[in-house]
């Protein structure tokens, strides 16, 4: 068994430290928001996890396309790793968003475009794992997985735009804000520091998890090969 590379070990430690600093910045350093109060602090991790979640789904779609072109199993491992991590991060985003929405929108959930799209994205990638589960042949499993991520990654943006045609209440903090949105606010200096640091920290954490998960996938593939060798 290959030992963990030193770079990866260092990255593991850096990720933990960054998460700790980011937590401090979000929960203590950043000033309290005037109208929403303490619950606004959820925002920093909410955006950061959403960002890495999207990053992962994008990486999965790219890995899927590359797999179909090259038919190299290593891209299948990359694809599964990306989908798995993103599924978890997106779920965290939804939970954090709900915690924030309860006091601010006075409901845990609304059928707003972003919320609906996030929920449907989760369902698509859960379906992705159910599809893989049902196929024994690793080659076919990889091909079908790649096709389905491709179809899913095209459908998700269209879903978003189709629901966007209704009106949205989700606030847009960065860029132009819709005046009808509930819970918008302007970021002050301290908030910006916490916000951009959280984005940075979660990007590093994502890369670290991604790397570890790919390594795990490679090891699992090797175990599978050894098993076959013993059986024959």
């Amino acid at each position, binding site marked *: 068994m290959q030992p963990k590379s030193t770079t990866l070990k260092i990255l593991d430690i850096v990720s933990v430290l960054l998460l700790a600093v980011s937590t401090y910045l979000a929960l203590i350093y950043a000033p309290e928001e005037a109208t929403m109060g303490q619950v606004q602090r959820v925002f920093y991790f909410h955006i950061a996890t959403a960002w890495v979640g999207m990053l992962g789904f994008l990486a999965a779609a790219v890995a899927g396309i590359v797999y*179909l072109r090259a*038919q190299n199993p290593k891209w299948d491992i990359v694809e599964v790793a990306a989908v798995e991590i993103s599924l978890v991060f997106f779920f965290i985003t939804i939970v954090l968003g709900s915690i924030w929405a309860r006091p601010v929108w006075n409901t845990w959930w609304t059928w707003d475009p972003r919320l609906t799209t996030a929920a*449907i994205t989760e*369902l*698509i990638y859960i*379906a992705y794992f*159910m*599809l893989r*589960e*049902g*196929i*024994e042949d690793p*080659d*076919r499993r990889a*091909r*079908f997985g*790649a*096709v*389905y991520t*491709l*179809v*899913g990654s*095209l*459908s998700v943006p*269209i*879903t978003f*735009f*189709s*629901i966007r*045609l209704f009106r949205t209440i989700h606030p847009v903090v960065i860029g132009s804000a819709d005046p009808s949105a509930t819970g918008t606010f302007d970021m002050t200096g301290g908030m910006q520091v916490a916000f951009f640091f959280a984005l940075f920290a979660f990007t590093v954490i994502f890369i670290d998890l991604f790397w570890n998960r790919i390594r795990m996938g490679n090891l699992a593939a090797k175990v599978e090969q050894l098993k076959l060798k013993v059986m024959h």
Partner: protein
Amino acid sequence: MVTKSARLSKSVTERSTSPNLFKATLAIAWKDLTAEYRSRELFSAMLVFSLLVILIFNFALELDIKTRQSVTSGVIWVTFAFAGTLGLNRSMAVEKDRGCLDGLLLAPVDRAAIYFGKVISNLAFMLIVEIVVLPVYSFLYSINLFNPGLLAVILLGSIGYIAVGTLLASMAVQTRTRDVLLPILLFPVAIPVLIAAVKASGGFLNGDEFSMILPWINLLIVYDIIFVAIAFMVFDYVVEE
């Protein structure tokens, strides 16, 4: 696993047979329609199922005159979507069960012909069911559904639904869970079609201005084009042995 040179030579032979693509597509669609005309298995199942769904909605939603106006487009699209999965599952399962799919794959035609042939036959089944369900719905709930705009929306929506459904059904039949899996794979991906189709149908039924319905119709057209194109490109990978 197909090597690169084999793939290359395959694409060369495909190109040489491509003038036959249209003929091959029609032949496959014709085969399905003939088989269905003789057995009428699929059509009767989809039709009875659709009528049952409408009946259940009648009790579940208390379809009185007021609610009818607002929920009709939703009810007919849920009915079509459910009946559609039934048809998609069956049309691919029949090929798989009797080893017909291998025969089709051995035929010296472009794989795209198999996809388009299947899309045409599946679309035909779905449209035939819709043609029967619409007058029945009109008759039962005395709502006039014969609006040319609504019929166009139903055609566009069905094309998108079947285009992606045929691709996913050919994947689902090759898995262990088979028929259970198709709706789970298809519904989340087909959501844009259903949203746009329900909104556009509702617009026509309420007599909204055309400029208000147009964005939804555009969305349907965009979805149809994207998914027919993508399914056409990846279908090879789905049926490859």
